[in-house]
């Protein structure tokens, strides 16, 4: 297993998944690192690495594992440069919508979030079933309910028909 290549291929997606799942960049960063540390102790077939990594990371979130000391971020958040620089009003509006998404995700059950976010990362239903510990045949139904639950919570906050694009 070429760990360097795996890290480069999987880390961005894992971090993105964890950031969406937890809503916190530091937590996502820490847990992604911890999951990769654990991956190094494993000897897995390459096609099982990605589901294993996301499952372990989700379990770390579930168990509330946090690193005791947050290490110094090597790349500060302020280094992030958006594609377009919004004006003051637009920026406020955007921040509110981001906060609404974050709150809506936080208000649905973790398993719903896990399934929805794994779906966005392109996992198969079989992989999602193993990661969430549910029957493969139930994944579609669970996803459908989760999707609707998210939309209800989000629209209730926004007072709109859904996210603006």
């Amino acid at each position: 297993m070429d760990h360097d290549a795996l890290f480069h291929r999987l880390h961005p997606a894992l971090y993105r998944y964890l950031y969406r799942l937890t809503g916190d960049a530091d937590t996502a960063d820490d847990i992604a690192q911890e999951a990769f540390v654990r991956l190094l102790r494993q000897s897995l077939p390459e096609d099982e690495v990605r589901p294993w990594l996301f499952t372990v990371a989700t379990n770390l979130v579930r168990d509330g594992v946090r690193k005791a000391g947050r290490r110094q971020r090597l790349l500060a958040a302020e280094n992030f440069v958006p594609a377009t620089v919004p004006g003051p009003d637009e920026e406020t509006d955007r921040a509110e919508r981001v906060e609404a998404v974050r709150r809506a995700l936080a208000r649905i059950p973790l398993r719903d979030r896990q399934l929805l976010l794994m779906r966005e990362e392109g996992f198969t239903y079989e992989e999602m079933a193993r990661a969430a510990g549910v029957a493969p045949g139930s994944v579609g139904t669970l996803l459908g309910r989760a999707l609707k639950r998210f939309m209800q919570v989000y629209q209730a906050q926004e007072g709109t028909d859904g996210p603006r694009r």
Partner: protein
Amino acid sequence: MDHAGEGQLLAYLDGELSAAERAAVSAHLAACTACAEELSVLEEASRQFAASLRLLDSVAPAPTPVEAVLARAKAERVAAVRRTLLRAAGIVLFLAAGGAAAMPGSPVRQWVQAAWERRAELFGGERQGQAPPAVAPEPAGVDATPVDGRIHISLVDLPEGAEVRIRLVDSPVAWVEVPTGGDRPVRFVRGAGRVEVSGGGAGVVRVDLPRGVADARVEVDGELRVFKDGDTLRFAGSGEGVGGGEATLRIAR
């Protein structure tokens, strides 16, 4: 077919159905407005959900660079291996020390014992399982004054193998000393110009006879063994040779 379920429609959207299932759902959707509308709702919800996530991602700080994550992961792996090896080495040492300490005469056993005794000294504990230092029992002795130039020492029931050292001394009185600690207590019976000694422990019996007396003798179990002849001591038994101012004999029965 009956109306398609929510899960079935989502699986249809996600390409998770088998070819046969997909064909059946497609045929049903073509004929069922309700299911087609439900599919549209799910499709739109999925699109809106994805848009929400992109919005969230747009403010996400950049993660730690992959190289740094990789370096940390590898460092922790090395540390974990080192911890495992140290733990294993500790167990091996503990077992080896325990095994060595269990062997009589082992230096480890002596070290452990010394450490234990040191602990007792430091903390005031009593030494466990150790006998007090051996102290030789004091010998018992008695003097005897010659009467009319005569002194007879009678040794009775001394332990087998006891050594009797007899010498002439420049003293007016005789002296008999017998080791104690044996099964039989030491008994002295003094009479006129006579001492009878019985019992006693293993060791050396000392008999000092005054050089100035004319008749000095030592008897063992009623038998004359050594007597003074002038300024010398002589053995009465055959084969024991002639002593000088000193004579030694061993109790044998």
